[in-house]
């Protein structure tokens, strides 16, 4: 047990994997560093130390405006959404015992998409102006995403939830939701369609501080709840029979985990749209780094997911400047080949 440190304090006791802790600390450092650099890069370049000063209120007025009003909320949203999507994927992959599972294929993302397009279509008047505030859009997206997750869950119920049925129904529902989304885009006002398209691709463009403050507590609460549950995910990964034999209440645990997974993905999708493949890739990379023990897999996945979306966003807003390319384009650009690679590898098993 050389790799591990036992931590005991009265009723508290944990076994800590030292290497994993080192990786988590390094990743936190990398995320902060990338965030500082990313905040600095843009039409006005701000040096990292000036970014720190501006964040803590000691910068020039101009820097503070750019950093606090425009760039920081956007980067914070990339971190939150990337982390939430990654963890949502990690839960599904563990529970379904299939490394190809992700919130994208369970229809959660597309539930959000349909609700968003529906919202934009229903609340547009003849002059193509929105009849309600756009601030309600995240709520609509969130409800759509959670409803889709819930629907998959209800439809795959048959004396409990079998993971494989969950995946198949998820894929089926995704197809239906995609079709409905396309239909709405075609019959809806044309310029809404381009808004909708950006949303579906996923972008953290135009995030404000309020968005971040709305999403932050939600993600934090769900992550804490998940850490409490991580032991149960580990056990479920050994298969239904082993888990039941060791005293797990599979059904209750599955419902809770699905709720957390859907909640996280729904929250991310509500504000950042359908940033694809993060929920698939991040847990994979994390597993390569720290193995499949869920207690460390969750924070590492979250950090990797944050990095991915942050970097995708950075590339998207700088590479073709002044043109902005949604972050989702780049996560998909890396994600799709990665997915094919995974399929190819699993074929050879």
């Amino acid at each position, binding site marked *: 047990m050389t790799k591990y440190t036992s931590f*005991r304090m009265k009723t508290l006791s944990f076994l800590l994997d030292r290497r994993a802790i080192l990786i988590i600390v390094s990743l936190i450092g990398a995320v902060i560093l990338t965030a500082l650099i990313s905040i600095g890069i843009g039409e006005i370049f701000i040096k990292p130390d000036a970014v720190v000063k501006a964040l803590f209120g000691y910068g020039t007025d101009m820097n503070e405006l750019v950093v606090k009003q425009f760039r920081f909320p956007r980067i914070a949203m990339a971190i939150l959404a990337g982390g939430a999507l990654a963890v949502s994927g990690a839960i599904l992959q563990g529970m379904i015992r299939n490394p190809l599972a992700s919130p994208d294929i369970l229809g959660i993302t597309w539930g959000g998409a349909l609700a968003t397009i529906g919202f934009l279509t229903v609340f547009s008047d003849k002059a193509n102006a929105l009849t309600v505030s756009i601030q309600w859009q995240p709520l609509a997206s969130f409800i759509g995403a959670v409803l889709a997750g819930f629907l998959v869950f209800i439809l795959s119920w048959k004396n409990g939830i079998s993971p494989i049925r969950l995946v198949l129904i998820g894929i089926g529902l995704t197809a239906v939701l995609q079709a409905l989304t396309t239909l709405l885009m075609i019959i809806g006002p044309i310029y809404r369609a381009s808004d909708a398209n950006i949303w579906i691709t996923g972008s953290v463009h135009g995030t404000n501080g309020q968005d971040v403050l709305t999403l932050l507590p939600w993600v934090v609460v769900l992550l804490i709840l998940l850490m409490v549950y991580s*032991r149960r995910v580990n056990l479920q*990964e050994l298969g239904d029979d082993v888990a039941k034999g060791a005293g797990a209440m599979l059904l209750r645990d599955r419902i809770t985990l699905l709720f957390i997974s859907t909640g996280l993905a729904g929250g991310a999708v509500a504000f950042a749209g359908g940033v694809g493949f993060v929920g698939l890739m991040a847990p994979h990379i994390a597993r390569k780094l720290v193995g499949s023990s869920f207690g460390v897999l969750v924070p590492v996945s979250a950090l990797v997911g944050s990095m991915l979306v942050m970097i995708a966003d950075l590339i998207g807003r700088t590479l073709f400047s002044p043109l902005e390319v949604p972050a989702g384009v780049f996560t998909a650009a890396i994600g799709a080949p990665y997915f094919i690679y995974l399929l190819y590898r699993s074929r050879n098993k």
Partner: protein
Amino acid sequence: MYALQTEDLTLGYGEHTVIDELNLLIPKGDMSVLIGGNGCGKSTLLRSLARLQKPHSGGIVLDGEAISNKPTKEIARKMAILPQSPVAPEGLTVLQLVKQGRYPYQTWLSQWSEADEKAVQYALQATHMEEFAERNVDSLSGGQRQRAWIALTLAQDTDIILLDEPTTYLDLAHQVEILDLLFELNKEGNRTILMVLHDLNLACRYADHIIAVKDKGIYDQGKPEDIVNEELVYQVFGLQSDIIKDPIFGTPLCVPHGKGRMVHAREPADV
């Protein structure tokens, strides 16, 4: 004393009944083996004893109490099950696997108490897996992997261990290795062991008590040397055979009839 018993237990899948109103007693402290032909319901019976499958009717009694009334974690502290050919997730180490046997003792604040550590160390020791503790389960040989899974059930620290064909897919040497290990756990650790085995000869050698399953019920049960004979093999497996004495252990040894190369003329079996 009995470790487990069934009361009018009826099992099946949908309309199809596999076990019909069975009353079975599993002796405490013994190594018991369920034998029977393919699809006779012995695995289903074992799974239902471990509460992995709900009975159609009837019940299972553990320590004088129906298991359907007990919290599942409490049962997990008394009885462990190793299902057939379990699969570990990629990248899981032996220690991470075995550790999870402690689930029924843990809470979310206490995930690695001293008792947990001791039980896991004992489990690794007893299965001779200490040196592999930090290896990935998927990098082990078949026999080592099965020992890791047995260590998981041992970490659960239960008086009863159920195993569904623990030697499947293992070569003969590893089959003997696993059964020797279970034999030690039974004789020295004083645990009740109930398992399903396919190899009748190995079953006869290791079991204190054999239970032959046939026609939705029990054909016969008892000590192998008392009950295993040509008639039983014919009735249970539908196979003609000679039963001779194992030249080393003296336990019944089944030599099946059928076709094959004949090197010398057949002599009457000497029993």
